[in-house]
């Protein structure tokens, strides 16, 4: 871990770490509730059907970034999520937990760095949801053997994943975040403070 990442993690307060832990736990609950559905979709429809709900698994890190708006918020949340999955057990194996977290973090963190942690509109969030998809798709294709399917199946899967990422990750994150912005529970975080300043 290089010093800039250490610095980014050091800048996060205990309250922010706890929020990140909570979001990772919420993802753990959603993952365990959806794991049966996901395995069934994988068994009966391979990469295409599994791709329909992939966006739900990416929400927690993006939501952390939406609420905290600091460097390292998404990467830290995805790292906690991966650790949690290792401790609880994951149906896709330890490498998928680590690789998925790394792939999402590698996209989200630079993206919001470019946005200077200031652009959180619908367009930015929907784009973030789509942008997080391709890298993990390529890694997962090698990991789970999707590369052996025909190119049509792969293209359709990627398209479905992008749509799922846009709506179920970007869209859902923005929707949940906006509903929480006015509540007293997010007042200590950047989202609540910016909402109060704007009101």
């Amino acid at each position: 871990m290089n010093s800039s990442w250490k610095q980014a993690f050091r800048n996060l307060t205990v309250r922010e770490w706890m929020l990140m832990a909570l979001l990772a736990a919420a993802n753990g609950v959603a993952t365990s509730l959806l794991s049966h559905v996901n395995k069934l979709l994988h068994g009966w429809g391979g990469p295409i059907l599994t791709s329909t709900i992939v966006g739900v698994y990416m929400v927690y890190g993006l939501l952390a970034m939406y609420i905290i708006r600091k460097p390292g918020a998404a990467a830290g949340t995805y790292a906690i999520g991966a650790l949690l999955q290792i401790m609880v057990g994951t149906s896709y194996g330890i490498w998928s937990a680590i690789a998925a977290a790394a792939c999402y973090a590698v996209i989200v963190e630079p993206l919001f760095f470019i946005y200077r942690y200031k652009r959180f509109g619908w367009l930015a969030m929907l784009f973030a949801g789509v942008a997080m998809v391709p890298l993990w798709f390529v890694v997962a294709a090698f990991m789970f053997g999707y590369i052996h399917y025909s190119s049509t199946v792969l293209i359709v899967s990627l398209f479905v994943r992008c749509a799922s990422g846009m709506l179920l990750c970007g869209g859902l994150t923005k929707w949940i975040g906006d509903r929480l912005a006015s509540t007293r529970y997010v007042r200590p975080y950047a989202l609540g403070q910016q909402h109060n300043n704007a009101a």
Partner: protein
Amino acid sequence: MNGRQAVPSIRGKPGWLRRLDPLTKGIWLLCTGLAVMLTLSLTAQLLWFLIVLLIAGTGAGWRLKQWRLFALWALGFGLPLLLFQWLMLPSGGEEPLWQPFGSGGPTLTASALELSAALTLRSMTLFASSIVYATTTEPRDVVVALTQQLRMPDKLAYAAAVALRFVPLLLAEAEQIRRAERLRRLTPVRGVGGRLQSARRMALAIVRSALRHVQDVSTAMEAKRFGSARARTQWRRIAISPVGCLLAAATIGAAAATLVWL
């Protein structure tokens, strides 16, 4: 689903895997995953799956109920996946074994079956090894190993431990809100719109109540000055056992042999 189901129980008969430290067991887990992901040989996949089953059988101390659940889960997922991949994977112009939908439909060939079986076994090995690790390892030992041996930042490791505590709490909260909602409504929800609205209300109620917990926990941790000390003292110590080293070394060797010969 209740909280007890979401977090794997490590209770049961004590097996030798439970006595190993999380780090060497982690090396076993990582090497097993790496070996099955980097080979497509059916023999190698079958061998690795049998090794994981053997390790689980001798060292995990699973009860019959846990084995039944595992078998149900593996078959319920593995068989449809095997058939789906056999149908969807390219046949490579080979003589078909069977054409289930007539001459115009997809063909089932021997090479597609072999590839499908290898990929299915790979998924099952990844799943089985992860479950074996989770059911034989104390989460607090993982946290201690991460901070002591891997020098991971305390905040990150302990946040993962806190997240683990949050899981049953969130599930209990969700169940309570669901029951309260049902009592208030008295009549069952009908239609897709009604269900969506109910899910939306419930999701927001859960998130709000969970955020309340965040405030309580973080206030308590700040009061105890968590993260302010330069070096954290440790009460628990994790010792690396010779059996663990042996398991890790054997897995590294087996993984290397798989990549070279299979």
